[in-house]
């Protein structure tokens, strides 16, 4: 059981890291295409129509795909003033319990993100711009990102509950 949890956790960690790397790359890409667009507009008087719209889609993707990596890097915040004074074992139990509780809202957010993706996909809804981008694409990134985030929360909660040694996840879960 413990081996299975560790294996699953490692796979999830890899997926989160990939999400993080994609998100980081998207930041660089966004900076570059926005700059190129400015040059194209002012120097060649030929603005690129897709830049504003696609920058927003890339933001959606980088934010949601980065949630899991941010969680694993311990960059989400929590208040540790009270919990930090408890014995280590109780802290671990509290951490697991609050993560399990956190699964509830994230599951609901996740469910509705897939639902919205599906309604956009089946309804063939497109953006109200000349590009008419199928909106299921950006909605899909929300759904995938929240799903990774949800599984990361479950995995870390599981690790805490089972007291499994877990490499880099041993660092504090967030910034207190």
């Amino acid at each position, binding site marked *: 059981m413990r081996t299975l949890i560790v294996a699953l956790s490692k796979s999830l960690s890899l997926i989160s890291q990939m999400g993080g790397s994609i998100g980081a790359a998207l930041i660089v890409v966004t900076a570059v295409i926005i700059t190129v667009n400015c040059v194209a507009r002012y120097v060649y008087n030929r603005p690129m129509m897709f830049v504003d719209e696609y920058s*927003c889609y890339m933001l959606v993707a980088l934010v949601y795909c980065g949630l899991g990596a941010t969680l694993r890097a311990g960059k989400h915040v929590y208040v540790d003033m009270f919990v930090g004074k408890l014995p280590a074992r109780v802290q671990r139990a509290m951490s697991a319990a609050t993560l399990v509780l956190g699964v509830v809202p994230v599951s*609901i957010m996740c469910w*509705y993100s897939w639902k919205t993706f599906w309604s956009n996909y089946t309804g063939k809804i497109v953006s109200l711009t000349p590009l008419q981008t199928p909106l299921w694409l950006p909605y899909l990134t929300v759904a995938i990102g929240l799903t990774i985030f949800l599984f990361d929360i479950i995995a870390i909660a599981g690790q805490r509950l089972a007291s499994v040694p877990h490499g880099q996840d041993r660092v504090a879960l967030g910034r207190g």
Partner: protein
Amino acid sequence: MAELSLTWSILIIIVAILTLLASGMLIALAMALIGIVLILISGGSLASLGALGILQYNVVGDNFGLVSMPLFIFMGYLVLEVGLAERIYDGSIGIVGFIPGGLLHANILSCAIFAAMCGSSVATAAALGAIAIPLEINRHNYPVRPVLGSVAAGGTLGILIPPSVTFIAYGVFVGESIGQLFAAGIVPGIILSCIFMLYIFIAAVIDPSTAGPRLSFSIKKALSGLATMWSALLLIGLIIASIYLGFATPTEAAGVGCVIAAAIGFCYRRLTFKAVREAAMASLYTTSFMVLLIVTAQIVSLGLSNLEIPQRITAAIVEAGINKAVLFSLIVLMYLILGCFLEPGSMLFLTLPIVYPLMTGLGFSSVWLGVIMVILVELANITPPVGFNLFVIQGISEGRPMIDVVVGVIPYFFCMLLMITLLYVWPELATWLPTYLFGRG
């Protein structure tokens, strides 16, 4: 809950939030949980949660201004990685090092200049602190507390002087123009920097032992100081000019700023793949955690407005005839207390769903409120026990105790309260520039 009295509704919500926070739950998850429960209570069925799917996309995807957040953060980290902070600090010494208070003025000036390229208070404090603290304490024998205090407080200018991540987050949350908010932060940012420097000057004149030796003045040194930081000034000038001369939106200025920062790093031979990667990853972490807070705060806001709680609070306050100044003071006091316990961004988004409709409902300007909120967030960064700037400065202070940072920062705490008072008495300090540039404050 609709039948509950307003007092009971608020009490239940506050107790629920405090319990979840005290249990150590991630703040964003706690806010999402509270928001979902509020929506369920107001709608009475699961169907009322249907708006979540659209909301969590629209908050992020329908806002081109929000794209500037990761870009400005990325630019700040790039500037840090390519070593512009050292140049700014060296240049500032030549410009203000001769004033009584000496290098402490350089701390404030360099933080203010660095703030104009970096939207983060903690990053500003960390960047300048790492350079200034060892130099001033070890080489120039400056007293420890004033040095630590000035850098911790100077760092807070990072979010008041644009570009500012907090202004972007506030603007996105309340639907205010980010360009106007940036403009609104400029004058208060300059005034607050001057207040800090005025305090250092007065303290050094009254008691020279609060500072170290001042440097001699020469035009050559001052010009050489400016020359040292030409690249930083060029970057700042391009960002500000492009936004306010109408050439670019804040988002475009951020994108171009990133590329210019990278180009400067390339010229100085400091730009490496590793530096870009680390800057991008750090930007991703900050953006993801901040945007998740904004999204979950919008969920709370939706739940609260469905229950008409902000409207009912505003109506109750108007009915009770509470003086605006008293109410404002109470709100400031509330933020000072919350700032002791909460991470500043979380504090902002936990309270905005109530405070924003309340204050704007009472006639306060949304842009002005943004500036006040940013200063309150700054204060939260320097109030113990959870003041991020305090931790950062203590971490780079070569083992000095936290009490040294806390005591050092106390005078600046009061300087910021003075700034809030000035802004309350003369709101034009914040609203004049946006009104002048955009026709509305």
